[in-house]
């Protein structure tokens, strides 16, 4: 990512001192803007963390610095709310969905990127349509379908579709697989590998960054998903996920802002930690979703 990071150095010889001073002023100006914006971007999270460390009384005031520090709020929120339960459901949903989506999407992406067959372009356009169209379009028939099998109120309607690929994941993986030179695949085929063996032995090891990015996106999507759990699990609180729980905490604990914010911080913390470990795969993945400029 260093290539993306470092701006192209445009060195223009500075003819005189006034020009130099102008440059320095511009340098200061740009960095000041960056610092001011940086503070604005960080403030909401910092404020949330500070609020979560206050007493519940102080959290209701306009203060933003805790009079006394209460890290035990993070223990209490586990005791007085169903947070452990929400967390478990969220982990089940996000992990199983991510694993299944990758298993079902990688072969499809490989076929779309590297195999020649009739209707390939048409199929790819269909995948893009599925990816682009708002999920709300098919919400009601899907809900009725799951209700017919008695699966609403559980996590099943959220996880089972992952067995059958995900349009965005297929799209992203295909874009990545296109960057792998076909010569490697031809070499494997000449050595007598079948297509599946070629995929498993040759393509998978080379596609690891793309697969990591696709997996991260799916995991984050599930972790953050609000519409899906609201639709399918709101009728049964034992299936609620973090997003759903957080949105409703407020009604039950509306005077305990310190606890609501502690739960909110806990909901975002795993994502930020994962991001710092996987930043490279992540940024590369986002870049792949944009199209060639």
């Amino acid at each position, binding site marked *: 990512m260093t290539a993306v*990071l470092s701006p192209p150095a445009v060195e223009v010889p500075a003819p005189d001192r006034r020009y130099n001073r102008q440059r320095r002023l511009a340098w200061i100006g740009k*960095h000041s803007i960056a610092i001011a914006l940086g503070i604005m971007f960080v403030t909401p999270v910092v404020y949330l963390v500070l609020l979560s460390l206050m007493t519940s009384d102080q959290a209701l005031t306009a203060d933003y610095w805790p009079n006394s520090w209460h890290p035990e709020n993070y223990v209490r929120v586990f005791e007085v709310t169903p947070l452990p339960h929400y967390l478990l459901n969220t982990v089940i949903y996000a992990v199983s969905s991510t694993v299944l989506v990758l298993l079902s999407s990688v072969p499809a992406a490989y*076929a779309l990127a590297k195999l020649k067959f009739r209707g390939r372009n048409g199929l790819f356009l269909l995948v893009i349509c599925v990816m682009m169209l708002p999920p*709300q379009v*098919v919400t009601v028939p899907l809900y009725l379908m799951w209700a017919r099998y008695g699966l609403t109120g559980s996590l099943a309607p959220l996880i089972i579709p992952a067995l059958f690929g995900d349009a965005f994941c297929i799209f992203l993986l295909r874009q990545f697989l296109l960057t792998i030179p076909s010569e490697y695949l031809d070499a494997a085929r000449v050595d007598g590998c079948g297509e599946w063996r070629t*995929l498993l032995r040759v393509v998978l090891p080379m596609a690891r960054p793309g697969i990591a990015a696709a997996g991260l996106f799916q995991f984050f999507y599930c972790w953050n998903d609000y519409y899906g759990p609201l639709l399918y699990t709101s009728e049964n609180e034992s299936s609620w996920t973090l997003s759903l729980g957080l949105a409703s905490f407020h*009604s039950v604990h509306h005077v305990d802002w310190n606890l609501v914010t502690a739960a909110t911080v806990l909901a975002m913390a795993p994502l930020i930690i994962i991001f710092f470990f996987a930043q490279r795969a992540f940024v590369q993945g986002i870049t792949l979703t944009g199209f060639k400029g």
Partner: protein
Amino acid sequence: MTAKPLGVRVRKGATTFSFLAPALIGIAVFFLYPLGSAVYFSFTKFDLLSVPEWVGLDNYRRMADDPFLLQSIRNTLWMVVVFVPVRIIGAIGLSMLLTQLKRGAGFFRTVFYLPALVPPVAATIAFVYLLKPGTGPVNHFLEMIGIEGPLWFNSPAWAKPSLVLLGLWAIGDLMVIFLAAVLGVPASLYEAAELDGANAWQRFRSITLPTIQPVVLFAAVTGVIYTLQYFDQAAVAGSIASGQATVGGGISSNFGFPEGSTFTYPLWLYTVGFRYSALGYANALAIGLFVVALGVTLILLRRAKAFTGEES
């Protein structure tokens, strides 16, 4: 295709199919089938307990004089017209700034990106607290510099702008896409322009912008699609700002708070379908959304070649 033995071709076809089978089933069962059902249901009337009864175009006629629908369309249009361009301009601005920084560009990129990771529900809660009219730090700060802050999420006029602020805060994904595009502009073009005496703004106008123009189109189309399905933040902001949030049973009682100003099209669709159980009408609304979204998508697909990055 030159003549290959039939057996080989069949076997090759079978292998290809084995790669695609899960995805094909997925598209058929979870997209094409429900889409077809939605079209059929949109001509019927039923609820969770009754059987669909054919009513012809009744649902579509009903759309013509539904005040809530009109309000939700107005709100969604407002978001499309304001939210999408503001986010694109913001993302281009941030990525241009990052390329100008001689030091700490990586650090600032991470800082600007981080809010995009915050779950939408968590981010919305954070913003409702930040912008609380009485006790929020933003209005407190504004008061210090002598400005009387608005009521933000509690004011019909400011609720949508508050959502735009929230969207600007979580701009990271878009910024990274633009950053890659901006850095992809050949440095030689800038050098030539600088020798010609072009100032920074002229260089941006005549070099950067034309070069990244396809990415702007991509961002505009995906932004409109995103805004058409804008649900989570509007739903959560409305219920939390109203101070009496209920999910679960009484789901949508606070949708659109205050005074319907955050009541977007998807919220109305959800309310009609899952609160009023007017499933036929909800499907008609869904088809309306489908037609608009498809139209917008086609704009992008007309540029499919750039989008799909075909090898050949």
